[in-house]
């Protein structure tokens, strides 16, 4: 079974965000970048599939030269190959999907696995875009996945419950936290990863579908009335919620 796992390089979740000089991206100074946490679940799921069925996992990212670090991390976790589609410019979701779709078309992957979202732009777009571009079935926010032969069954998170789904390979799947416990790379694997191949190629240029005009830190307009734990303040809180905020 050949698995393609799409990964992205994102700021660590604890990063303090400051707006950069261009007014439409963040200031990278001092920001620690990591493999997108949801992609770790995707990679782990891919590795488990090949451990069970044979085959190999290829990881793929679209991004600047610096993204090679997350590819090495992925190779250390157990992926065999990596594809680095290079672009110094930040591409929109459509262009990223288009580039990954080209990679997918050049090889016969049985399943493409992604994280449910990347935690930088939180766009939730890649899985369905790839499904559509490759004319494959896709399922997002998968919390449980079983693949037997070409039959795919699993559960996907929806508001207030879970949907149980069935589809067939080849397919595109995005996974949710909790689907597995990602492994930590061990030293021998980290060493071995250094000699695994990374196929670097330039991104194909596509037309811009969306553009970011500006980025801001949201102005907080919170009332900020902080009270004490006295009985009269507890009653005052109830009054404020009923009469001032009118929310209860």
């Amino acid at each position, binding site marked *: 079974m050949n698995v393609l796992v799409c990964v992205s390089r994102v700021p660590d*979740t604890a*990063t303090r*965000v400051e*707006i950069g000089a261009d007014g*439409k991206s*963040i200031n990278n100074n001092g920001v620690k970048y990591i493999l997108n946490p949801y992609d770790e679940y995707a990679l782990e799921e891919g590795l488990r599939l090949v451990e069970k069925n044979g085959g190999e996992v290829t990881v793929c990212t679209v991004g600047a030269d610096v993204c090679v670090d997350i590819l090495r991390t992925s190779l250390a976790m157990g992926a065999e190959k990596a594809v680095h589609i290079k672009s110094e410019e930040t591409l929109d*979701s*459509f262009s990223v*999907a288009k580039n990954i779709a080209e990679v997918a078309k050049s090889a016969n992957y049985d399943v493409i696995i992604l994280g449910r979202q990347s*935690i*930088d*732009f*939180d*766009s939730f*777009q*890649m*899985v*369905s*875009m790839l*499904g*559509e571009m490759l004319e494959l*079935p*896709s*399922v*997002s926010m998968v919390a449980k996945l079983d693949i037997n032969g070409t039959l795919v069954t699993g559960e*996907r*998170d*929806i*508001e*207030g*419950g879970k*949907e*149980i*789904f069935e*589809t*067939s390979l080849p*397919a595109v799947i995005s996974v949710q*936290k*909790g689907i597995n416990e990602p492994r930590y790379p061990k030293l021998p694997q980290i060493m071995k990863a250094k000699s695994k191949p990374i196929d670097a190629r330039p991104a194909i240029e596509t037309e*811009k*579908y*969306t*553009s*970011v*005009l500006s*980025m*801001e*830190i*949201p102005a*907080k307009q*919170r009332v900020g*009335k*902080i*009270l*004490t*734990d006295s009985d009269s*303040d507890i009653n005052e809180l109830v009054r404020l*919620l009923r009469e001032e*905020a009118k*929310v209860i």
Partner: protein
Amino acid sequence: MSKVNVIKNSNLSSYSSSAIASSVAQIATAESCSIIFYPANSYGLEIAPRTAVKLEAGYISDCIGLDYNGGDIIASKPVYAGKAVTKSKSERTNKIFSLRPNIFTASESNSTSVTICDFAVNISDKDLKVKITGLSKNEGKLDVSEADKVVSGGRGLKGPENFYIVEDLAKSIGGAVGASRAVVDAGWRPHGEQVGQTGKTVSPNIYIALAISGAVQHLAGMSSSKIIVAINKDKDAPIFKVADYGIVGDIFDVVPKLTAKINSLS
């Protein structure tokens, strides 16, 4: 609103993102609609990108604001877990937006007549490769992502046996129960209740955080709530920085009194 197109097709009896995307694209083409809105929920987020590819549309997801500027629609969208907001626009004639639930308020329609039409679509076999074979609902419970009032509990509750404090307050205001990741990871509450970056994003009218410190990853899931209330014994807890109202105090002492007061009034 002036026209409603209704699609009746037995192939749509089971949900398939690709069949719905294809149907919407067919309507949009037939009606020359160049702007499409979807809800940013587990369905809209799955269907919209497929529709965008079909219609070669510029798609912006999870919008919390739209400004109409000349011919352009400028969409505000939270990024970096809500720590920043971008304004962006579609560069294409066809534009698709998914809108975060409970952010946009519905206004009264001033149209005097609405035409309701049946619309026939073609759905091909390749759009029916995903089948929903079952559904498991979190029985009897209001889901955090659907509720307009949410009360969440954090690690300060000290154990699952104390969550009745959160549940009782939630019940008194008719809200749903949420939880921080610390509590979910400890196994005190199910993952479906987790609010935050790796849990659910909620924007209820009122969000009450009980003994939750307010880590950035938690704020990511609830900072667009209309009113935020925090109760925490640590006056320096970051949650107070995003709160509209707060009480510095021990939840075991304050919350039962608060619940009793609310119950006495209703």
